[in-house]
């Protein structure tokens, strides 16, 4: 079955983790859906690199955090916060591709 991430997640956000990293949090509404997504490895480095069109080597960590029913992905910021050419100093509006994301669970 295909799901829209926005239907099953209560929080989808991006933010700086220091000036050189961007971090993305997805918090699920239901524990059951979180567990399914975790065990099916819906979120993995390859998938995330593809979503943002970045090399996999730019992904610093991808962690499932059970207490918050959350997946957290941290990447190297393509341009450090506030450096020339950068357009999101806080990094808080880089999450939109995740809001269009669909995934399949059997």
């Amino acid at each position, binding site marked *: 079955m295909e799901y829209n991430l926005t239907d099953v997640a209560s*929080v989808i956000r991006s*933010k*700086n*983790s*220091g*000036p*050189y*990293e961007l*971090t993305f*949090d997805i*918090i699920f509404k239901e524990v059951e859906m979180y567990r399914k997504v975790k065990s099916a490895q819906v979120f993995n480095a390859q998938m995330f690199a593809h*979503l*943002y*069109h*970045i090399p996999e080597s730019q992904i*610093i*960590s991808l*962690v499932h*955090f059970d*207490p*918050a*029913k*959350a997946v*957290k992905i*941290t990447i*190297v*910021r*393509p*341009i*450090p*916060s*506030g*450096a*020339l*050419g*950068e*357009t*999101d*100093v*806080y990094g808080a*509006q*880089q999450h*939109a*591709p995740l809001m269009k994301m669909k995934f399949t669970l059997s």
Partner: protein
Amino acid sequence: MNELRILSPTAILGYGFPMESFAEGMKRKPHVIAVDAGSTDPGPYYLGAGKSFTDRNSVKRDLEIMIPAALEAGIPVIVGTAGGSGARPHVEFAVDIVKEIAREKQLSFKMAVIQSEFDKEFVKENVAKGNISPLFPAPEITEADVDESVHIVAQMGEEPFIEALENGAEVILAGRSYDPSVFAALAIKYGFDKGLAIHLGKILECAAIAALPGSGSDCMFGYLHQDNFVLEPLSPLRKCTTLSVAAHTLYEKTNPYVLPGPGGAINLHESKFEQIDDNKVRVSGSRFVPTEEYFVKLEGVRRVGYRTISCAGVKDPIMISKIDSITQSVKDRVKNNFETYGITDFFLDFKIYGRNGVMGMFPDAPQSAGDELLIIIEAVADTQEQADTICGFARSTMLHFGYEGRIATAGNLAFPFSPSDCKMGEVYEFNVYHLMKVEDPKKLFPIEYVQF
């Protein structure tokens, strides 16, 4: 002592708090009022320019409530990362406000001022000794990078705060501080578990952001015990839930299980989050794991130049379809025009909102254009005058540029303002974000005492 109580009035000093919530906090007889006053989030400008990103009146309003209340209750007020970035001018900004409050309200107290800005020579000596390593993914540092830096600050741990408390400070204003230190210092001084104290500090530093609904301008209360801590929001509108607290543990961190700081990291692999009543959450199991050697985090910025911008809209569908080739042609024309004149070293950029303005740092990600665009023409050069020249010339060139297929021949840009160009002043970028090995976590952060 079985319980240490901490009042966190607001997420950032100057973001404010409702008086009702603050009064609820004081009723619970806190042992300390602590607040974080800064962040690197607003970007490199504030550290470089020596300016606060929070407004002076807003900061004074918060301190004017906190300091008299604490003095009356006989408890200390601790402020970390004073002035937003914690370099000398930022600390001075906060000291000046406290002096004004003491004078106006005729208050008498002992204040400690802790500095965190390092001299460049000292940092260079440590570069030479190999004591400084980049915090991935920041690049390596050289002595030349240090010379270029305007201010370099280090994040202090709880040690200087403990010393100031031992010396009877009633108000502590500190430079750049590891956010949880101001909340954890008194607890660690009294022998409470450091892992729990710092984890509690990590949550309290954002005050009511960890509650539901979250707020950056409301209070949060922490109760620290020997083997757990409890969080309670002070507004009846908010609740702490296991989810809101656990979710906050993710916020702005690289990895939620290991949170590094001065001298070690807190490990959350065994942390438990329990709902103990409608609006309170208990957390246990967080541990502090010291590193073999003590490292502090350095932050520094260098000046890149001066910026001028011009904002303009585009509605013409033919122009929108050709926007990339138009901006490239304008860039080429600007470069060519000033080549022999001698203005050659500049940065000229077109931020195109309505297409990929917000996510410009992911140029390969899919884009879609709206039926109108906002273009921000940005020029950065060595002087403000040169930035004005480049921006102004790019703007006039783009306004009348005869692109292929153009049928709207009167002008290409809709300016919302006259004048169309805006001087943005100095531009900085981060160039130091490194760990430095230190022998003594106290000595590097000198404390000065002032008696009012």
